[in-house]
């Protein structure tokens, strides 16, 4: 796998949320506004990249690798938990509003399957540079997924798009033009499930039609031969 492929895989081919179905909890809980999605994404990328770096660094020393082998999961979790705590503290100090709206889900990055999964499946077996690229790719892919969901939910549920802080695009005029109001369902918990379900279904439909087309192409190739 080339470096470019490694970087691009997290966006569509191996998107952690849409394809691998990991990290669904925050994707449902905090996507009520775009700002939250950005905040979560940044925190997530930081944790993922750092944990990938540290873990691949540890594993690059053979002696150390052997030493931690029996308790490696616990060691990984400890490293991830401390990274998460660092993010949490920095966020609480410098971005208190975001910290409040993300709430317990920052701490829960610790048990997010993506971070631990990448540590165990990728970082422990690859070089540091590859692991960093992998972390960035996966983190960006996850952030992209969060952004898509939060865009849908915030627009339909609230009529606005909050980019950061006071920087907000007000689209309530669209609703007024149609003589309707935003539907609060989308910002509620039930709406979260529904939006994620529909988005996943669209992904699946695209994938299905792609597969069908590929099959047909192969068939035609065979016939030509």
């Amino acid at each position: 796998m080339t470096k470019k492929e490694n970087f691009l895989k997290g966006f569509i081919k191996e998107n952690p949320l849409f394809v691998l179905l990991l990290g669904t909890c925050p994707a449902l809980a905090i996507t009520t506004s775009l700002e939250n999605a950005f905040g979560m994404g940044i925190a997530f990328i930081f944790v993922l990249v750092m944990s990938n770096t540290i873990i691949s660094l540890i594993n690059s020393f053979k002696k150390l690798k052997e030493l931690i082998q029996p308790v490696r999961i616990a060691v990984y979790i400890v490293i991830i938990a401390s990274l998460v705590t660092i993010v949490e503290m920095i966020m609480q100090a410098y971005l208190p509003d975001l910290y409040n709206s993300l709430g317990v889900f920052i701490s829960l990055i610790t048990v997010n399957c993506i971070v631990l999964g990448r540590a165990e499946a990728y970082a422990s077996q690859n070089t540091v540079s590859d692991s960093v690229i992998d972390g960035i790719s996966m983190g960006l892919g996850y952030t992209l997924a969060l952004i898509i969901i939060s865009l849908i939910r915030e627009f339909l549920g609230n009529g606005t798009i909050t980019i950061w802080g006071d920087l907000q695009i007000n689209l309530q005029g669209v609703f007024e033009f149609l003589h309707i109001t935003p539907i609060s369902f989308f910002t509620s918990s039930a709406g979260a499930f529904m939006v994620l379900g529909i988005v996943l279904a669209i992904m699946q439909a695209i994938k299905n039609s792609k597969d069908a087309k590929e099959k047909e192409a192969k068939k035609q190739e065979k016939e030509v031969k």
Partner: protein
Amino acid sequence: MSFNQIIFIIFSSMLLENVILSQFLGICSFLGVSKSRKSAVGMGLSVVAVIVLATTVTWLIYNYVLVLFDLVYLKTIVFILVIASLVQIIEIIIKKFVPSLYKSLGIYLPLITTNCAVLGVAIKASQNGLTFFNMLLYALGSGLGFLLIMFIFSFLREELEKRKVPKAMSGIPIALVVASILAIIFSRYVGIVKEDEGEKEKELPRTANVISMHLTPSDEYLDNIIRRMK
């Protein structure tokens, strides 16, 4: 604490503030394991046990170690270690003493470490300053809520397998849609469990203004007010 209060806390954390449907904790295992009933019930039962144990231990550590030594910022790292080792210990104990149970539950136990419901409930219970008894009830209710949804959902998933769900929707997407419907239904249960109304009278403060309320104050309480007005 009255019986009514106990019921209120358990039912509220089980139905209204359900871990899965309204707090979005433990979704991964919820989607992953709910396919067969045996595993769903197994997972649910183990989560109930681990949540109650882990929350108790972490609550004790939080209140009697971390807060006292001003080390609150270490909570995530300590909690996750506690949960991981608890799960390990439970696994060993079950393996040794109840091998049949281990056979059916064993495979789910390691998964629980990364179940965010456990860590989430533990953090919430400690951070929000619950009393010990409330914490126990809250943890139990949350665990039971998880079990209930897993149980219901195993039936729904099984039923969905038989239906002609469109290809694009089949699998996880339709499960999420059903979860959304469940969330709507559960939101309609508000008020089924009521807080103890009887306690209100006792808790009334001594303010004269309270007279204008709909409540009927006790004699002793009225005496108090009259004394105050003089």
